[in-house]
């Protein structure tokens, strides 16, 4: 399926949950309402026409004007087509629905997005920090992150 057909089938099924799209990009992307993410992911995985059974990558992004987001790179092993989904949220309300019940691989990627960007994945089964120590403060990949002077009373070098 082409990106346009995927977009049309999503629009037909979910209507206003599809916020925006850019189909002329080298890797076309579709922006999804963050509160409807799980339903859409489930539909894309289970619909026989799309069957996106393989999540290549899930990345958190800080867009630098108070906007955070998660980018989902999906692939279908059956039909061999790709699509990129995006879900945006704000720093004040950093909530996006978790898709780890749809693709098990999302579990660790989402924990990483929480760890690095502070995006809270609603309904995630085990939302803990993954790469940083459990008692670390702040989310380092945010663009406005300041390196703390002390960690547990120890001076942080440089």
């Amino acid at each position, binding site marked *: 399926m082409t990106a346009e057909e995927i977009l049309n089938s999503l629009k037909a099924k979910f209507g206003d949950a599809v916020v925006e799209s850019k189909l002329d*990009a*080298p*890797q076309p992307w579709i922006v999804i309402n963050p509160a409807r993410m799980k339903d859409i992911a489930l539909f894309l995985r289970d619909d026989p026409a799309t069957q996106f*059974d*393989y*999540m*290549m*990558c899930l*990345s*958190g*992004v*800080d867009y630098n004007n108070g906007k955070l987001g998660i*980018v989902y*790179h999906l692939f279908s*092993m059956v039909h*061999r087509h790709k699509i*990129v989904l995006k879900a945006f949220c704000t720093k004040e309300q950093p909530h996006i629905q978790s898709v780890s019940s749809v*693709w*098990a*691989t999302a*579990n*660790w990627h989402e924990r990483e997005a929480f760890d*690095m960007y502070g995006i809270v994945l609603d309904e995630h089964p085990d939302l803990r*920090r*993954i*790469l*940083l*120590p459990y008692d670390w403060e702040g989310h*380092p*990949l945010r663009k406005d992150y300041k390196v703390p002077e002390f960690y547990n009373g120890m001076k942080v070098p440089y």
Partner: protein
Amino acid sequence: MIETKSLPTQYVSQPGAILTSSGKTLRTDEMIINMGPQHPSTHGVLRLEIVVDGEIIVDVIPHIGYLHRCFEKHAEHMTNYQQVIPYCDRLDYCAAINDEHSYVLAVERMLKIELPERVEYIRVIMAELQRIASHLIAVGTFGIDAGAFTPFLYAFHDRELILDLFEMTCGARLLYNYFWIGGLSHDVPPQFVDKAKQFCTYFKPRIKEFNDLLTYNEIFVKRTANVGVLPKDVAINYACSGPMLRGSGIDWDLRRDDPYSVYHKLDWQPQLGKGEMGTVGDVWDRHIVRMREMEVSVSIIEQALAALPEGNVQAAIPKRIRPDAGEVYARTETPRGELGFYVISDGSGTPYRVKGRAPAFVNLSVLPEISRGCMIADLVLIAGSVDIVLGQVDR
């Protein structure tokens, strides 16, 4: 809550109880054991929190991050795109060339650069040499996990010969900074082609020797067959890749299915696990896939050496690397699987965001799923067969 439903039924009549030979039940408690972060069989600084019922594993909780070096934050703070490449080397230090390949591919796709044929062929040769070197570490240390020390020495001896070839080309033996955006840092030296051909001739019988020594050894087969079985649907749902995926019998190789470089011009086939010694997707299958991939790599190197065209390897290197605002996700098949880089450019000279999709990170996340119900000694083998490099897991 600890799940006990996946325990083998012959050991357990109810959660936490073991049947004795006299027909009585022994009440037992679960115990939590720490394995790592300083443990030889975790292949680096991985900590596994293991919940055991006697010898049987009830649950495994991996704790990672001990080797986190802020790769993604560093990448955003370089002064140009080129400076990220040495950091990519340090992700998977056993297969640095393949890491570079994925990153330069992402940036080249943003810049829409056409590369000279010679660059592509040298890249394929180097990537495949690196794949052999990396698989040699994987199968060698996997032998140690199973209690066989000798094959490890064979593997490391042969790996040295490959590192000699790299040293001859770019001066480094482990972390190369060899692939540049649009080209290579050096052309190969004149004697390289002969030396590489000699290596291929030398190495082919060595694979058979290694197989006789380890792969078909009866003790090794008994330890690895039917252990840690990864079913197809679980493998796809966890987005496993590389030998993990092919070991489960899924015909999938990015070199063929999402073509890059000149792999489509060469004649080769991906190797799959077939369950010859046990079940499809067990630990032995993942091991044999690595062994056979080394044979395939030798064949790819020989073909690429024979077809190596002339040309200037630095002709396409751009003077100024400043991609248009946009984003790209590029992936390559590294020895551990699909390594992808998601690069966002804001039109400036530094990447706005670089996300590394590390295959070892993703493959490791399936470990709890496939090790429940196994013995502790088997967990060592299962973790070894995933072939993690903690530099890549923690980035």
